[in-house]
């Protein structure tokens, strides 16, 4: 390269999902599949081998009729940073460097052509965000026409996962370069699920950037592994030290409690939680 590119545009892309707004409709899941060329089979009712980068979980408060409550929780790849930036559970274990953590965007990548299918990363991920291609992807005749050139279709025998629609970042950067600008605007790079969510429950942006919605809502404390300072915001399995970039928000206590494991009494008395402060 001719010119050294000294633009340190370090970002930490992340999400805030308002669980009180999420209706469980599944638009995020389908938008993701259709954006990212996710294949489908004739029978997808076995959820243990069904590829859904974005997966909506159904949580219940465990109470019986008529006090039952339900909450839906969309789960994309959490893009963990780990205890020290880049020490994601999956990235650190991949033997062939097929998955990587970008210090520039904070996004965990997965390179399909490098992966040889050992599935160690799947074992390491507590969120089940990683999916294996047990079958060759097959589209009914003629349906290949809708495949997007921005994302490579995957082959059998490798692992795939949510990329925060990284190709959209790349395409947005193209324009930024062309126009000689320095940086992306907040709305220039949005994931497909964020864009599709009819309830507006998903927000996406740069957690480092105080002007971005995600920062304003989650108020991440970057000095302490990005821990949210908004009391209604939580992260999944915060206590494992995965340091995820997907934040969840709910007014309901039981929902926030469901985000992590607690010994009896711990959730009620957060000061006692070991290792969380």
């Amino acid at each position, binding site marked *: 390269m001719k010119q050294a590119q000294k633009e340190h545009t370090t970002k930490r892309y992340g999400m805030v999902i*308002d669980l*009180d*707004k999420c*209706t*469980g*409709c*599944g*638009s995020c*899941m*389908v*938008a993701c*599949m*259709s*954006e990212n*060329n996710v294949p*489908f089979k*004739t*029978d*997808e*009712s*076995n*959820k243990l081998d*069904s590829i*859904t980068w974005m997966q909506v979980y159904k949580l*219940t408060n465990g*109470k*019986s*009729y*008529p006090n*039952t409550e*339900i*909450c*839906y929780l969309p789960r994309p790849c959490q893009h963990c940073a780990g205890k020290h930036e880049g020490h994601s559970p999956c990235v650190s274990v991949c033997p062939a460097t097929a998955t990587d953590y970008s210090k520039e965007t904070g996004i965990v990548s997965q390179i399909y*052509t490098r992966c040889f299918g050992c599935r160690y990363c799947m074992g390491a991920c507590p969120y089940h965000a990683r999916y294996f291609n047990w079958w*060759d*992807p097959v*589209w*009914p*005749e*003629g*349906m*290949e*026409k*809708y*495949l*997007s*050139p921005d994302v*490579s*279709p*995957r*082959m*059998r025998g490798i692992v795939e996962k949510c990329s925060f629609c990284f190709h959209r970042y790349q395409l947005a950067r193209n324009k930024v370069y062309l126009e000689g600008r320095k940086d992306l605007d907040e709305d220039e790079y949005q994931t*497909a699920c964020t*864009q*599709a*969510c*009819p*309830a*507006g*429950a998903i927000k996406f942006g740069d957690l480092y950037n105080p002007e971005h919605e995600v920062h304003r809502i989650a108020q991440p404390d970057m000095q302490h592994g990005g821990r949210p300072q908004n009391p209604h915001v939580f992260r999944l399995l915060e206590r494992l030290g995965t340091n995820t970039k997907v934040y969840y928000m709910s007014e309901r206590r039981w929902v926030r409690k469901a985000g992590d494991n607690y010994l009896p009494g711990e959730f009620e008395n957060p000061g006692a939680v070991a290792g969380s402060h």
Partner: protein
Amino acid sequence: MDDASIWSQNWAWTPVPADGAVTYENSTCTLCPGGCGITVRKVEGRAVKIEGTKGHPVNDGGICILGLSGLQLLYGPTRVASPLKRIGERGDGKWQKITWDQAISEVSAKLAEVRAAGNSHALGAITGPDRGTVSGLLERFLLVYGSANFVRTPTMMDNFEHVLYLTQGVEATAGFDIENADLVLSFGSGIIEGWGSPVRMFKANARLVENGADVFQIESRLSNTAAKSKHWVPINPGTEADLALGLAHIIIGKGLFDYNFVSTHAHGFEAFKQLVQTRYTPAVVSEKTGVAPGKIEEMAVKFARAAKPLAICGRGKGSAPGGLKEFLAVHMLNALAGSVNRQGGVLQMPPPDYIRWTEPVTDELAAEGLRKGRLDGAGSDQFPSSRHLLNRFIAAAAEDATAAPQVLLVAGANPYYTFPGTQVVKKAFDNIPYIVSFSSYMDETAMNADIILPNHVNLERYEDVPVIAGLSKPVVGLSKPVVAPQLNTRHIGDTIIRIAKAMGGHIAGAFEWDDYQACLEETLSDKWDALSGSCIWVDDAYAPPAPDQAFNTYSSKFEFNAGQTQKALNADNPLPEGNTAEYTLTLIPFDAMRLANGYIGNPPFMTKIVADTVMKRKDGFIEINPVTAGKLGVKQGQRVTLSTPVGEAKVRVNIFEGIKPDIVAIPRGLGHTAYDEYLAGKGVNVNELLGTVEDPASGHDAAWGIRAKLTTA
């Protein structure tokens, strides 16, 4: 080595999508009546992604799963690739490909034959709920042909219109300003299951959450809507009207109603008051509905005291009309709260009126046929203010072979699958010798038709979309061809025009347009420029008339007690079919957000995300309460037989805390026999287990469930 590595990374059978220039095209989604704006991303002419149009007044960038999956319908295997003529028995799926000329001459010859025999009234047509030019053309065709038997698939909107006609004396559709309400009483309306315009309702629901509005979801099952509401009020199904009138009892009794509205703008209040005060005391209502008296009072007081309360009804997605009593009772609550034609309330909306074609000239044969009237009795003395009664049409056709239509045209509807009481449809079809389907997809009705003249799918065709799904502004969308037709299909409008032209005479004379596009441009002349550009026309200036000008009743006031209202409110609740001794449970169908259950079946992406507690491999699940399960001794996932007076089905059990004991619930939208291998043969079509119950006041199907039993053998 590198070669080997690249080779092992690029399997020849993994497709490599071609790159190219990216363009975006706007259109309007017609996969449901919601009228969302869609923006299609294209790469060198291939459509690769459907997104919601940003800033669109209906959906503002949001999009539902059906809309998102549109490309799977466009490029998918369910489509009918060319005109087909049946060669085997009906339903065998043996077809012969024919040319469009053959198809049109065959259908027009058949129609000419029936007409020449003086049986023009024996032509029937069933369409979807749409009210644009496509169904307009079909209706016009029947008119000049000489048949009154044009039947539109009814929805909850038919009842809302009926209610507005009875209470406010207007021919109007209903709009709901949910976004601005601060309390919503929903009598089973699936606000986020797809009620009205799904994406708009998702957004409205998010607004309600933001505004901290109280939402009471009144239904016997913890639906998604109930789960997202502040309050879930489980109720005995079918008693919603009683609850509404019970609430009215308290509101009136406590004098909490909008005094100004009632005294100045309403008429017949005293009679209504007497009705609710005598028959709907809290004790009675509590007994009937299963809702505690305290809860009833709390709801009534909160509703009446809210600044902008709104009561809505129409179960689930609102695709079934339901009972008139319930709609009237709920509307009375809005009237008591003064939430009529004001912000956050029910708004009377002008029905789409841009179709102003010249009155066609008809001949004697046509006049003769029209005099024979409608098979379904809509508009007759019995049901003077009903317009289309599909249930009665089908029942009449099933009952008597001589009365049944000799030719049936079906467009934008799939009654063979969606009609509750599928057996009756089968019987009716057996009595109809010639069935023409215009379906783009090989759905159940097309499968059982004699000839298919496939329409373009929504992304290939022009169509006007007057949105009547409860929006608070009049909206007309335009669906535009985004890609060139992929298969040998033809626009249904063109097909009708061609058939008409082939028949000659006055019939041809009524269709002077060269083609459908010419017809559409002419029809929308004043809006065409706006529509062809942005695909959307909104009457932003529209505001519902003020109470002193709105009502067109005899009294020029809101009528609490018009003749038919009285009749409807005094009627008993429609009861489900079946005796309680043998059938100890009640089966209710429900609308699930991940199952399309109308004319269009689930595309693969939607089926993919259906939970494994709804469908597992080929098995469908029923939901029952753990208490019921305990009583019957069934376990999670167990296979059981579910029987109703109408039919029986093998299902699996999903034990669910969020359902009232003694209720069995099944989602609509599974159990297809047609479409593709991604959908067909999975789960149970609940319509095969249901029947219809005729509403005495409107003639519509008012059934909300059926008695049922479970056997483990």
